[in-house]
């Protein structure tokens, strides 16, 4: 296709090859990272911190704009990720489904987010490595999210893998894989963004 796909409404990019690439990225994200100069690592950190703040402030449309047009937001239900071609995930969102997720909350009728979750997330242990080109960075970090909703304070912990891609307007998230330590266990209401 010569014209640019509007991934808000179609999903031509989630192909068999796309799944292969995701699985290859997971392998890289799990491997030991080699040294990255501090300035370059800071570029990665900036986007992680920005993402955390936008999510905690519920600026979900701005949050979406941090993601590339061909992104994946993935929350596996299998520790380590498993094979998403053969297994269900808690979320395996392409750009369209991610926008659906935000749209649903914004309708004002998503009763699981009425009232909205309040969150505050800590991101630590950030490591970054070069990706397959200058335009790509791999990042992993640990997180702890405190969430409050309807009289209850809960916490969620795990690690996140990111693939960042440099585009004309700067770095974008093309992959976010959220690995909850209790991914395979029962959760109560995971309708806020991790």
């Amino acid at each position, binding site marked *: 296709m010569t014209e640019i796909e509007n991934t808000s*409404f*179609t*999903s*031509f*990019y*989630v*192909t*068999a090859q*796309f*799944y292969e690439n995701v699985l290859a990225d997971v392998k890289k994200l799990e491997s030991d990272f080699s040294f990255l100069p501090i300035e370059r690592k800071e570029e990665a950190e900036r986007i992680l911190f920005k993402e955390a703040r936008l999510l905690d402030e519920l600026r979900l449309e701005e949050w979406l704009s941090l993601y590339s047009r061909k992104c994946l937001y993935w929350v596996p*239900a*299998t520790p380590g990720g*498993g094979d*998403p*071609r*053969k*297994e*269900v*995930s*808690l*979320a*395996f*969102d*392409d750009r*369209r*489904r991610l*926008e*659906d*997720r935000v*749209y*649903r*909350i914004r*309708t*004002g*009728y*998503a*009763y*699981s987010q*009425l009232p909205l979750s309040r969150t505050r997330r800590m991101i630590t242990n950030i490591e970054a490595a070069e990706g397959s080109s200058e335009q790509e960075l791999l990042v992993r970090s640990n997180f702890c999210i405190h969430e409050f909703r*309807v009289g209850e304070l809960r916490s969620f912990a795990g690690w996140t893998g990111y693939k960042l891609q440099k585009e004309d307007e700067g770095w974008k998230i093309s992959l976010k894989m959220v690995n909850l330590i209790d991914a*395979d*266990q*029962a*959760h*109560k*209401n*995971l*309708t806020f963004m991790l």
Partner: protein
Amino acid sequence: MTKWDWDYLIQDYRVHRSVYTDSDIFALEMKKIYGDTWVYLAHESEIPNVNDYKTTYLGLRPVIVTRDNDGAIRALFNRCTHRGATICRMDKGNTRNFTCPYHGWNFANDGRLAGVPWKQGYETSFDKNELNLKQLAKVESYRGFIFGTINEDAPSLQDHLGNAKELLDEWIDRYDGEIVVRSNAHRMVLDGNWKFVFDNAADGYHVSFSHRSLLAVGNRYNNEKDKDMTYFGKNPDSSPMYVQYLGNGHVFLDQRPMYDQVGDRWEQQRPQPGREAYEKEIREEYQSQADHYLDLTAGAQMNLSIFPNLLIIGNQIQVIEPIAVDQTRLTWYATTVDNLPDEINTLRMRSQEDFPAFGEPDDVANFAECQRGLSIPEVEWVMFNRGYNVPDRQKVDERGVITAPVTDETPMRNYFQEWKRLLTMERSKVN
């Protein structure tokens, strides 16, 4: 006699709040419903090989479902006959023996006590056979679905399934290949009584309201055509959808009449990741068969609920596990179909992620709020009177199956009669 007046609590068109809030009633349910009747335990494909096992619950009782060394499927109480420790603490695995981690008693996976350490410390009359693991009185499967009961006098599983059996057949026979549970599950826990889930499973009244946000997501696409379930928004009573009370507590909601052409299911499905990419490939490869295959990525549109804990919804096997009077675990087992093209099974995974993420959480929030509302002692009744005594709304056929418009509360008010029958029954001899 019990301290409850069941005829007061369970009436023809309403039930008392205490059946959702009273922990003594819950304790009784855990014996008489989750025990004395058939309860769904597992799917055979979860333990495909000899010596496979998975752990689960029969009500609150921890149970191990094994395929023993001879290939027989058994349900063993996960309780060491020595001093009570659970002998198996894993979700699933493969083993011929379970060794109790506490004092090392060793049990074969058919339940036999195979050995105790330093046996000379026991008196000579010590008989290992008296200390085998206790097992459920009956374990039977129907086309892959394993059920168990502790009631020796329970009717056969097929009798218990009754009119639900044919519908389960239809769900299974949608495919030439076997339906298998091979994926992990999407698990949820909710602050509400388990019966809210069962009430909801054949409730065509809530859809346009509780799922308003999900139905609204369809508007983002400005589509002319109905998307999955949006048809509930336009006076569903005048649609060909219907609900049924099948007997023995089983209920059914049929959305299939909204899909009459090959290709409709695919057409109306909310889009899943990779939809366009995979559709292109599948159409090229399978040509005239493509629509048939693509339809199989979408749900069967049969909401079949087998009392008390097995819910067929979409392509998923949903299982209710009560934890406490006000807490329930809900597990969605995604299904794969052997012999379907891999691409179709991949799309099925993506479509089976849709409703648990965008639909169920709003119901679950409403269940928890029902639980909170029902805590008020002064407001006693839960009403199931929609369609009750309204002329010409219900039909009863020669099998006794009651059919009603899709928003009627026929399923709830009838399954509660079965619930009452079970709770008031003398407990028969239980194994």
